[in-house]
């Protein structure tokens, strides 16, 4: 029963997030300089901005047709209610429904890539933290610390291009195929590059948590009972540290969605990120709003899922 309630609450939060984001975005658009119908006509390439050869009558006819086609000027509340039924209207660029465009193959592949990178970052970061926390004053810990601070400072486009240069085209290291025609193996490098920065963040949080947990009396007691070092670090301490690291997952997922913009450009992949970059270039507002609404709802759902998972993992949370 409590699980059903929690699921209902999570769905309600996600719907509310979609409503708020869509309402705010359409209101912002109506406040922006320039008429929305003119911007829609420019985005659909019916109108060229500053075209002096076009007569006023023809321009007006185009604007009337655009208003009718895209239901403009928009009423933000009505649009937000439609969005709650996952109807974000028609794309201004090619008049296809935004929901079907975002839920198509490329959109789903972005979600799959982001989730794969998230899992990789969480597992890799936790493993590295468990490994380096055993030698806090050693060289390995210092090396990992330096590596993570570098990962957090390197611009993602550069990192992705260096990875391609070294691992795809580099003569001694041409290890991995990459690109849209390389199948599952081709997805490996983009996911690895995307996961590097989140893994560094997870490592930072997890290693701090693990160093504190390692001093706890119950850890000392389990060592005294003869539990192996591997089990102490990788099972007992890691599980306890997970409760402090997992709440980062929704924030990391948000980061990964934004990183997909760059990764898809660098690796020439089709996906929601590439769609969003194109939409921003031409000013396809419904697609931008649809992406914003769905990603905020997705992040809200991820945060609820983490909450439920932590309750299952940690009895103290369940009891409280």
């Amino acid at each position: 029963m409590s699980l059903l309630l929690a699921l209902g609450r999570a769905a309600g939060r996600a719907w509310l997030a979609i409503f708020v984001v869509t309402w705010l975005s359409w209101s912002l658009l109506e406040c922006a300089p320039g008429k929305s119908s003119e911007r829609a006509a420019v985005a659909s390439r019916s109108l060229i901005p500053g075209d002096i050869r076009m007569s006023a009558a023809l321009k007006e006819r185009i604007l009337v047709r655009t208003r009718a086609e895209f239901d403009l000027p928009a009423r933000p509340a009505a649009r937000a209610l439609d969005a709650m039924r996952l109807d974000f209207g028609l794309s201004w660029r090619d008049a296809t429904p935004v929901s079907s465009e975002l839920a198509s193959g490329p959109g789903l592949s972005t979600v799959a890539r982001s989730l794969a990178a998230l899992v990789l970052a969480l597992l890799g970061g936790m493993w590295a933290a468990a490994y380096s926390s055993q030698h806090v004053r050693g060289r390995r810990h210092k090396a990992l610390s330096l590596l993570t601070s570098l990962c957090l400072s390197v611009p993602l486009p550069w990192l992705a291009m260096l990875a391609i240069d070294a691992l795809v085209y580099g003569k001694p290291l041409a290890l991995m195929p990459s690109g849209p025609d390389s199948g599952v193996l081709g997805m490996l490098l983009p996911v690895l590059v995307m996961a590097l920065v989140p893994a560094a963040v997870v490592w930072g949080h997890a290693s701090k948590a693990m160093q504190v947990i390692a001093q706890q009396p119950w850890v000392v007691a389990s060592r005294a009972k003869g539990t192996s070092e591997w089990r102490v670090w990788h099972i007992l301490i890691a599980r306890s540290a997970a409760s402090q690291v997992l709440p980062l997952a929704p924030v990391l997922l948000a980061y990964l969605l934004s990183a997909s913009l760059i990764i898809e450009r660098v690796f020439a992949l089709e996906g929601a990120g590439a769609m969003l970059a194109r939409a921003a270039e031409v000013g396809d507002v419904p697609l931008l709003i649809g992406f914003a609404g769905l990603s905020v709802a997705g992040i809200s759902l991820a945060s609820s899922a983490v909450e439920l998972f932590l309750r299952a993992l940690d009895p103290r949370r369940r009891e409280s």
Partner: protein
Amino acid sequence: MKGAAKVVLIIACLQALFADCLAGERAIVLSRAGEYHVMATADGPLEKGEWALWPPIRHDPQSVRTGGRLEVLHEPSRDHILGTDDRGRDVASRLLHGARLSLMLAILCAALASALGMLVALLSLLRAELDLLVRTGCDVLAALPVLLVVLIVRGLLGSESLLSLVLLISVPRAASSARLARDAMQEALAMPFCEAARAIGCSRARLLLQHALPQSFSQMRVAAALTASTAVLSEVALSFLGLGVRGPSWGELLSQAHHNQLAYWLLWPAGVSCALLAWSFGRVAE
């Protein structure tokens, strides 16, 4: 390491301030007809008795021709120490002038985010009824990735100005700074010196402004450095996507490297400069 980070920051500041003196087609000082001109264009060759002090890199970041020739995608040579880009412009000159944009954005964003953050934290502690609202708002805003926010809001507003970029990078970071400042101020309010000030009749506003606010400055310095680092990386990412501010920028050089078979003279200098600047801000924050 921290010393090295400070040196990098000082060099970047000097580079941004004196970019025109380091790379450009105008003479830093020109002596002609017995008069001295500063940052002047020398029309025609210099005659006897005239002299000029030139920048070390004698190429303008926008100039596409070298001595009347169009040199596109040239590898580093004596004429162009870091080569040319796909329009024939000097990479070294664009790199030096690109530092100006990155650094200006970093400083503006850090200042605005810190000021907004402190203001929001003060408001939240001044009015108890606002506290929950401010905290929830800050939590939501701080979780939003900067790149996504900038891209979506700029797409909605259709604005490409530097000011809008500064605002859009600063607002999510201000939320994060506000949380830090609020925690630091609340901690200070529980300290004996604040208790004493309250006991002698100090008003809530004065208590916050005069006693609690200065206690949050060390936290705000850290937040400002992190904001600066985020701003540098966001600007590079946006320029790489072709959605940044017009003018020479490091992201644009990376984008050109991407379009031109990862040409090393375009890929490495911009990437290393950006990483060094972001790393220095990060180290200073640590």
